[in-house]
């Protein structure tokens, strides 16, 4: 235990009673995220203001105690697991929507607001916050920014980072930094907003964000396209994109993914396909949206699609998306454990990536389920296994290593939207090379000289 009693007392002084937790039960449930990794913090604090965060971090700096920021812990890389103990800083109670500026199309929010709640609020005013990680209902904006989360719609609309105009960040010594503004263009100084976006809690604690909004598309059409061949499906992705159609989303699911969803949700999905593409077009002109989906459907037919179904109404459409969002968790029905990666390759390499992933699966004799945001080259190969079987468990590391090598060989990267956390640290050097790693470590050194902010994450030691 690195946090002693006097520090806990001081924390209670800053936070007030009820916002500092340290019963064995509380610590046990703040020991995990959505991976299998676990480590307990020494104390949990639930701040309500940036000032409280600032005082907590200042105290931590003085006492050299680690601070691990946590939202709703839906992360898939153990980035919010406090492996060094210390303070778990829970941001969920800083969940106010501070301002919606309709003229400038911006929203100012506290970091702990649930992404779906923010979306619902802005959509009431005809505005739109596009990033849509599968965890929109159980993740926070702060977490989304800290991991630069993606999602299906990123194909057309870009990732979380593309919507962050400014941040309020508590630095490692407790000082408060404000970056950016309600500006579309701003080239004064280094882009610190971008630096903290995707920093996984290692450079500062994001407490507020200024977000860019767009106009809400008024029409959307979603098509479910069935393929008898996974290779055909993955070739179709490029056929659509090369034809100049920019769908809002272009999602790929292989047969196992489809079977898992069907088992969990009973939507009447076909079980004899090898792959499904979920294509959605959206926009403000209904005619254009329809023409685009029809053009995409025609290209699907030409590439060997077996059947194409366009969602009749909003219920059918929302069911399809509910299904897509539940793919990853519903895989747990197939095997006791799963390990999901999120490699990204240039989209021209998708068919080859899919082929090589299947080859890796065959080589090791463990299933790899493939689904993901094929349109932007971001694939989620999920290895299904049983950790209790030592033979299977021993295959996992070499399989992951092969998956990453495949991605890097094809000009891709380790992660498109989940981040690095602890799980991808061993592969960082392979992906980025020594010069980049050294530069990044030096940035970390400048911003967090005592290494108290989420220590042991992102970079190899």
């Amino acid at each position, binding site marked *: 235990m690195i946090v002693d009693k006097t520090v806990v007392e001081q924390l209670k002084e800053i936070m007030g009673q009820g916002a500092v*937790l340290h*019963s*064995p*039960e*509380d610590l*046990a*449930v*703040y020991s*995990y*995220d*959505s*991976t299998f990794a676990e480590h307990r913090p020494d104390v949990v604090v*639930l701040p309500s203001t940036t000032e409280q965060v600032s005082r907590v971090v200042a105290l931590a700096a003085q006492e050299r105690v680690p601070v691990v920021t946590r939202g*709703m*812990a*839906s992360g898939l890389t153990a980035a919010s697991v406090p492996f060094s103990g210390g303070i778990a800083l*829970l941001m*969920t*109670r800083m*969940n106010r929507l501070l301002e919606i500026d309709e003229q400038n199309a911006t929203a100012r929010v506290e970091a*702990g607001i*649930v992404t*779906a709640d923010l979306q619902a609020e802005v959509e009431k005013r005809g505005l739109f916050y596009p990033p849509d990680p599968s*965890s929109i*209902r*159980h*993740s926070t904006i702060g977490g989304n920014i800290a991991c630069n989360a993606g999602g299906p719609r990123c194909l057309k609309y870009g990732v979380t980072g593309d919507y962050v105009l400014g941040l309020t960040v508590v630095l490692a010594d407790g000082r408060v930094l404000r970056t950016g503004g309600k500006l579309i263009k701003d080239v004064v100084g280094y882009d610190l907003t971008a630096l903290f976006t995707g920093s996984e809690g290692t450079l500062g604690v994001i407490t507020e964000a200024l977000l860019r909004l767009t106009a809400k598309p008024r029409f959307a059409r979603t098509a479910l396209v069935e393929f008898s061949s996974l290779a055909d499906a993955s070739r179709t992705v490029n056929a659509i994109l090369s034809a100049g159609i920019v769908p809002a989303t272009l999602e790929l699911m292989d047969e196992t993914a489809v079977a898992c969803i069907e088992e*969990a949700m009973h939507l009447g999905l076909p079980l004899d396909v090898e792959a499904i593409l979920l294509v959605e077009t959206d926009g403000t002109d209904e005619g254009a949206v329809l023409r685009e989906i029809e053009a995409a459907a025609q290209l699907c037919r030409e590439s060997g699609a077996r059947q194409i179904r366009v969602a009749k109404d909003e219920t059918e459409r929302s069911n399809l998306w509910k299904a897509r969002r*539940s793919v*990853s*968790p*519903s895989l*747990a*029905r197939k095997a*006791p454990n*799963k390990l999901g990666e999120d490699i990204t390759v240039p989209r021209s390499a998708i068919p080859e990536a899919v082929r090589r992933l299947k080859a890796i699966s065959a080589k090791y004799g463990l299933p790899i389920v493939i689904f993901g945001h094929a349109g932007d080259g971001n694939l989620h190969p999920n290895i299904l296994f049983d950790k209790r079987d030592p033979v299977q468990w021993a295959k996992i590391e070499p399989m992951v290593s092969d998956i990453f090598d495949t991605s890097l060989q094809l000009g891709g990267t380790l992660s498109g939207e989940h981040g690095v956390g602890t799980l991808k640290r061993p592969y960082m050097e392979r992906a980025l090379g020594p010069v980049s790693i050294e530069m990044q470590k030096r940035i970390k050194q400048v911003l967090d000289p005592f290494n108290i902010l989420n220590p042991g994450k992102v970079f190899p030691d």
Partner: protein
Amino acid sequence: MVFQSNGICKPSENEYLNCIRCGLCLAVCPTYREYLNETASPRARVALARKGLEGELELSPNLIEQMYGCFACMACNDICPVGIHPANLALEMRYVQEQLHPAAWKKTFFQGLIPKPVRMELATLPLRFYEMFGVRRMVYALGIRRLMPAQLRDMEAMLPHLPQRPLRHVLSEVTPPLRMREGRAGARVGFFLGCAQSLMFADESAATVRVLARNGCTVITPKQATCCGMPATGYGRQDLVQDQARHNIALFERARVEAIVADCATCGSTLKEYGHLLAGDPEWAGRAAAFSKKVQDVSEFLMEIPLEKPRAHMNIRVTYHDPCHLRRGQGVWKQPRALLKMIDGLEFVELPESDWCCGSAGSQLITHYETSLKVMARKMDNVEATGAQFIASGCPGCQMQLNVGVRRRGLAVQVVHPVMLLDQAYNDKRGK
């Protein structure tokens, strides 16, 4: 639940080992959404159950308290992509605790009092006196209610207009049909008169029986029916429920009925589980399954028979709250809405988040007062937004909770059972 070698009945391993901690349940859990603290979430309850059962944590009072903190609304069961049931696990953990350290009062209460109708009627006599001799009217008229401590005032507000006599003594064992009907409508139907319905919501169950008889049913109301068993389950005494189940099954077998109708969502959902509960008992498994197959919520039953359309024109605005034990416990949500929409002039307004827990969960307003009020506030915001004059909901627990909510906010909203409105429409003489 599975039996372990040491004779302790524990939750099945799969219910906690299969949790992948995805966090989907956080989005729908009423207690998590109020506190935004992991400890109050289904995912945490599963983790704590696992750590407690595997010995990593002690089964401490604080750990068990987290299991009692669950409102058992089952929203987590529904959303779980893996198919585990965190809400059931929380209930089963309460049972584990009672097997290891039984609380003496629970045996007295859930074996000696709750399942004995005569004793329950005696125990609730003061409540009826309170209503009957005008004390309640005085408490309101003289403003005494405002002098009560807040929690007592809220408990007072839970009470509906109480019957002079328990309905059990008013209803006859056999209610003949008002008119003859062919087929299912002319069936011999058993009515399961629940404790809360008989003792507190007697008007509603009287309406249920009238509506059934009007539509051609011969209604058999066995007077010796005992508590369905849900209260004991809620407090960790699952073991006591089996006897109650056997008693009720035998009773309704003797009544030779084709269907068993309940107008209490909680009773209905529990009765439907008897088959599952007694599946391991060779003598009773088949009988219990046959019993459960016959059980239907009153709205479910009514919407399956050719129901007489009321002739009255009501001219009211009504919304509907889904009781957890009806929507998720029984998968019944279309029928009560359809039933209400049959009434001419009734403007039906859908309640936003209609299936979000109201915060009652049986007795959480008493045992978890602060949390219960928080959960209720969300419900009442939604009720206010509808501008409805009536909120219909076929569950005495929900109705008591909604009564408190309405009185706390001073809203002019009446809380009713959907069947009450149908019954009123049948008997409204102003009609067209």
